[in-house]
């Protein structure tokens, strides 16, 4: 590995981290969604700065080609985050339904109240 690839790895990891942190700062990302990206970004930064940690970790779990460990972990993070997003989406849909029902029921109550008020005022003008 030459210096250019070394620096390229570090810069890529830093950009990923910067995007996550800036999104957090601007309230574009909630903490519980950001946490996986933060961890992945930090791991990428550690591996790019100290490439030996990757070889060590690969040997530890018995992966012959260290790059395969990177692919495996990246895909694992992506799959887990997608599952989390699907779960959140399901929850949001359920909440939207509840809100729509509440609004519809309130609308009905308001209409009934308006009618009751109108009826109560009516007889004086129109016996």
């Amino acid at each position, binding site marked *: 590995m030459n210096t250019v690839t070394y620096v390229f790895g570090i810069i890529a990891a830093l950009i990923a981290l910067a995007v996550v942190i800036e999104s957090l700062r601007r309230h574009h990302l909630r*903490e519980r969604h950001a946490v996986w990206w933060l961890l992945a970004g930090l791991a990428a930064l550690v591996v790019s700065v100290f490439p030996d940690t990757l070889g060590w970790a690969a040997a530890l779990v018995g992966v012959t080609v260290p790059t395969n460990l990177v692919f495996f972990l990246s895909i694992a993070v992506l799959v887990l985050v997608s599952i989390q997003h699907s779960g959140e989406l399901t929850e949001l849909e359920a909440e939207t339904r509840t809100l729509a029902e509440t609004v519809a029921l309130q609308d009905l109550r308001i209409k009934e109240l308006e009618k009751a008020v109108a009826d109560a005022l009516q007889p004086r003008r129109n016996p």
Partner: protein
Amino acid sequence: MGVMPTALERTLIVMPAFNEEESVAAVVREVFATVPGASCLVVDDGSVDQTYREAESAGATVLRLPINLGVGGAMRAGFKYALEKGFANVVQVDSDGQHDPAGIAELVERLGDHDLVLGARFAGVGQYTVHGPRRWAMVVLSSILSRLTKTKLTDTTSGFRASGPRAVALFAQHYPSEYLGDTVESLVIAARAKLTVTQVAVAMRPRAGGTPSHNPYKAAVYLARAGMALFVALIRPPIALREPVVSL
């Protein structure tokens, strides 16, 4: 014009409640008995039990959220209600009976010269204790937040707190809803908006439903989440306070 209302009469006691049908009515009654002339708003945070009826039968006004928003979300709704109805101060009290309403009067009294008053559990009154990593998390949080708010705070995760008019106006817009954000990040937001913060020692009763967890795994998770909440609070840009018009 009648007599000018006292600080306590201009205070709204907000109690976020999620499935607290067993304790909420007793807490509301105790609040009314301890703080005469108090106004009490229970924010029913999407409960599936009878919290709503229980709170109403005890005489509280109930704001019923159709979905669960968490303590932070429920409190922001409470702050908005207070602002709309013209209350000057808001005191947050847990609906599980953990907070002793006897402390409310002192919290409100200190609002005379501070914007935010925390009821601190470890300041010598009562016998509430926490050990191990959870305790360390609280100590670290306290020391960082003490520096930020320029006052000595010993219990920054306390939910027993009083907000003055400036804090109510700020929190009605910007009260965090993330777990631990409602206590930790709200302090950072307040300090950055140049609100003054102080604490008062209060007695805290052990929760009706058991003791705080001492599981080391849970404590470590708590530590990590507290650290995350603080980190996020600190990197976010400060929010300036738009000076509210205080109506008496």
